[in-house]
């Protein structure tokens, strides 16, 4: 199996297991998971949207977040389509949808500010490099490795495949979180699931 596919396959499973556990920690963490499912294709508007939802949670509680999320189209494709026409509840969501469609990689500055001071220097630098359009120096190496036409040496995962995977991940994660929140809302109002 070629190295990039192996990397994505292995780490995605571990990351998914971690995300499921993170969703058990706290509603704020659950919001982080929603964002995390989106980040493979979209880093920047995610942080704006995440911060918006966290602020909503802090100031108005989980009910407000649930109500806000209910305003958004449930299906990822509908989300994208509505976002492209600026039809979503917030500017950040519209940006998010458009950026996802464009497979853009934007700043994670807001989240970086919350990292432990003096740590994660490599991570911060790498995010900055990706923000500036990627690592030019590696493009030759990537091409060199992918040069042979044999399938086992194809290093680039097609963008459409990444996009599809990310949409699936986002869709699954949002459904998972929404159903958790529905159960929680029902139990807090005394109704049976």
């Amino acid at each position: 199996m070629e190295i990039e596919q192996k990397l994505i396959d292995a780490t995605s499973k571990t990351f998914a297991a971690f995300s499921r556990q993170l969703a058990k920690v706290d509603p704020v963490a659950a919001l982080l998971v929603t964002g995390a499912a989106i980040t493979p294709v979209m880093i920047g508007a995610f942080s704006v949207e995440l911060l918006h939802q966290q602020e909503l949670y802090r100031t108005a509680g989980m009910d407000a977040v649930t109500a806000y999320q209910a305003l958004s189209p449930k299906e990822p494709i509908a989300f994208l389509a509505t976002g492209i026409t600026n039809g979503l509840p917030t500017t950040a969501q519209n940006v998010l949808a458009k950026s996802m469609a464009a497979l853009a990689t934007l700043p994670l500055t807001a989240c970086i500010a919350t990292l432990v001071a003096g740590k994660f220097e490599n991570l911060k630098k790498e995010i900055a490099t990706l923000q500036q359009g990627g690592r030019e120096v590696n493009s030759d190496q990537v091409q060199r490795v992918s040069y042979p036409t044999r399938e086992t040496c194809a290093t680039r995962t097609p963008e459409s495949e990444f996009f599809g995977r990310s949409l699936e991940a986002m869709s699954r994660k949002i459904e998972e979180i929404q159903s958790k929140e529905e159960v929680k809302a029902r139990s807090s109002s005394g109704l049976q699931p």
Partner: protein
Amino acid sequence: MNDTSTLIDQLEACIELVKSASISDETRSAIIAQGATFALFLSDVEMQRITPESSLKESMLELIGFYCEQVREILTTDPVEACHGN
């Protein structure tokens, strides 16, 4: 037994490998995004912004350690040799 400061160093070492690996920016972005999520979690735990129940926390820290080990194992396999070595 994993502790957060050891894992922070392990995750940093893992990002260092990703940084210098001959992989596409799409893949690099995906791994960095996942790494950023782990970093946010580790930071929140270290600074006690979140306090997961201890067995859950231990299990999550184990997963981060396992993740770093997976990345290290995969990326320390020479990609050029893997393609041309036969």
